[in-house]
């Protein structure tokens, strides 16, 4: 009844091709943005901003980057954390070494450096496909971490490669409070998500999808294989690089190279699988699930301890959490292999007919 597109006529091409053609979608999106930008900063507290919302947004951006590469262009990558590391460390170096470097410029430099690394490690994708490529991208993961640990210049010769993110200041306005960092992250993520959504509706995005669906056929119809694949790697790594810089500056503050291990790559991959491969919305849903679920489990286990009045050892709790987490991922893959985004689609279709499904 509420969610119905009947009667919404389009009289221009622009109206027909907008991102959200249905009025209700536009209203919902606007409401969501208002909530995220205005309501949440008013009611949120320090813990919510710094421990939940900011990491969620940062990891959404990383998942978005990986989704561009894996979900849209079909190139499986296990090197996400490495690209994030490049972004974080190069943004740090940009601020450190270039006088009067604006912070947003530093983030962009971090992203561009990550894109360059992405292109370099994307080169094998021209020849290697599928799972072989996934394993080959592990080379990137291990090589980048090794290089950061080994090349002192990257971490300004600090011991064991730990860097401390500099103060953030935009146009003379210092960003120190967790709420301001959340807003900065939110703004960047929202803009880049919009860019990604539009990119996937453009010629480039369609070329990515053609390559994903069948690369031989794509090259036959005239899509330049090398350019498109490397572009996919570059754009994806750019997103991951910016996410890495945000991870360092807005979330962690003090970063060691070990923050970007293979584990993080897998977590981001989980996000897009659980959220939905080849879906912008899915990146956010998956990131929400993967960041919130461990916190939820933690709260539950503490509540169980409190109600039963027993003290469980830390090892028992963390192992049980690992089992539940792994089990739930398998469960999700079995019941909805297309991810949360698919559930959302089904819900929308149901909603269109509601309350008269026949």
């Amino acid at each position, binding site marked *: 009844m509420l969610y119905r597109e009947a009667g919404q006529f389009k009289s221009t091409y622009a109206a027909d091709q907008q991102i959200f053609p249905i009025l209700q979608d536009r209203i919902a999106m606007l409401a969501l943005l208002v909530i995220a930008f205005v309501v949440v900063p008013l009611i949120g507290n320090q813990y919510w901003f710094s421990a939940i919302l900011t990491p969620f947004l940062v990891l959404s951006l990383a998942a978005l980057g990986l989704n561009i590469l894996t979900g849209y262009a079909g190139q499986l990558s296990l090197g996400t954390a490495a690209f994030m590391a490049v972004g974080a460390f190069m943004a740090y170096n940009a601020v450190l070494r270039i006088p009067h470097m604006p912070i947003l410029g530093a983030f962009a430099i971090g992203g561009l450096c990550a894109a360059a690394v992405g292109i370099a490690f994307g080169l094998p994708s021209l020849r290697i496909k599928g799972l072989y490529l996934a394993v080959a991208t592990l080379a990137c993961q291990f090589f980048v971490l090794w290089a950061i640990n080994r090349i002192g210049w990257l971490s300004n010769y600090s011991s064991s490669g730990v860097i401390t993110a500099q103060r953030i200041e935009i146009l003379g306005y210092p960003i120190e409070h967790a709420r301001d960092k959340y807003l900065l992250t939110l703004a960047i993520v929202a803009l880049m998500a919009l860019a990604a959504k539009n990119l996937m509706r453009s010629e480039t995005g369609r070329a990515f999808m053609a390559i994903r669906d069948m690369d031989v056929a794509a090259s036959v119809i005239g899509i330049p294989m090398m350019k498109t694949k490397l572009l996919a790697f570059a754009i994806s790594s750019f997103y991951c690089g910016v996410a890495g810089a945000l991870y360092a500056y807005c979330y962690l503050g003090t970063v060691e190279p070990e923050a970007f291990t293979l584990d993080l790559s897998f977590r981001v991959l989980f996000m897009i*699988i659980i959220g939905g491969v080849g879906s912008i919305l899915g990146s956010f849903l998956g990131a929400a699930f993967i960041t919130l679920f461990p916190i939820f489990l933690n709260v539950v286990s503490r509540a169980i301890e409190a109600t039963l009045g027993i003290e469980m050892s830390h090892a028992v709790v963390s192992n049980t959490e690992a089992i539940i987490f792994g089990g739930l991922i398998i469960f999700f*893959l079995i019941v909805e292999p297309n991810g949360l985004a698919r559930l959302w689609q089904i819900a929308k279709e149901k909603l269109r007919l509601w309350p008269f499904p026949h």
Partner: protein
Amino acid sequence: MSFFIEVVVGGLLAGVMYSLVALGFVLIYKASGVFNFAQGSLVFFAALTFVSLTERGWNFWLALLVTLIAMILVGIAIERTVLRPLVNQPPITLLMATIGLTFVLEGASQLMWGSQPHGLELGIPDVPIEWLSQKWNINISQFDLFGAFVAGVLVAVLALFFQKTRIGRALRAVADDHQAALAVGIPLQHIWAIVWAVAGFVALVAGVMWGVRNGVQYALTFTALKALPVLILGGFESIAGAIVGGLIIGAGEKLAEVYLGPYVGGGIESWFAYVIALLFLLVRPEGLFGEKIIDRV
């Protein structure tokens, strides 16, 4: 010269240890097309169960037998609960399911047996063979040689099993073509359960060998990462590839560590194996012994 030989032989023997883990991957990939990332956790699970049983005063062979039975049960359970519902899903979904499985397996094994590291002893000391080091001044570890011997026996047993037994032939038929195998009446799901059980057995062998080498601890799960370059180098579908890949990676890695490492500051073993594998893949994208990938539109 003798130093060079020592490095190469040491590398080859270390490579055999990688092959042991890679074998488990190959078995499952061949039969069911699943890239089983959980093989490292299976290795860890097997080694931890075995060592915990022996530490509780169990007889060596009894502990081995019980662990083997446990591994077979785990294999069958995985097939039932994880893979059967996920039949016909794209490879990446299956890969993610096995990564989920690693969380479960690692959590379960540490929940059961605790997370402190254990030492494991088979009675074969990790010392250089005396007459070799005296005669030619080459230091080759006795244990490494034993590891190679175990791997050799394992491959021989597997080869016999695949060539000569009824189940083995059924396994090969499934590996070649699922639908044709179904059509001639081979029960696909039984075969998958058997493959997972066999992979569990291989994991047990690998777990015991790696456990003696590095101690039974959480780091054992990372053996999977050591086996991955071996796999892509040899090809996912080939047992021979796993062995040859292991030898190439092992020797290449050791040589690079000794002769190249000092120039770049050392510690290159974490990624150099992948570079070797990448170089081979650029020439043959499906690995040395993998099935040729033919694209049809």
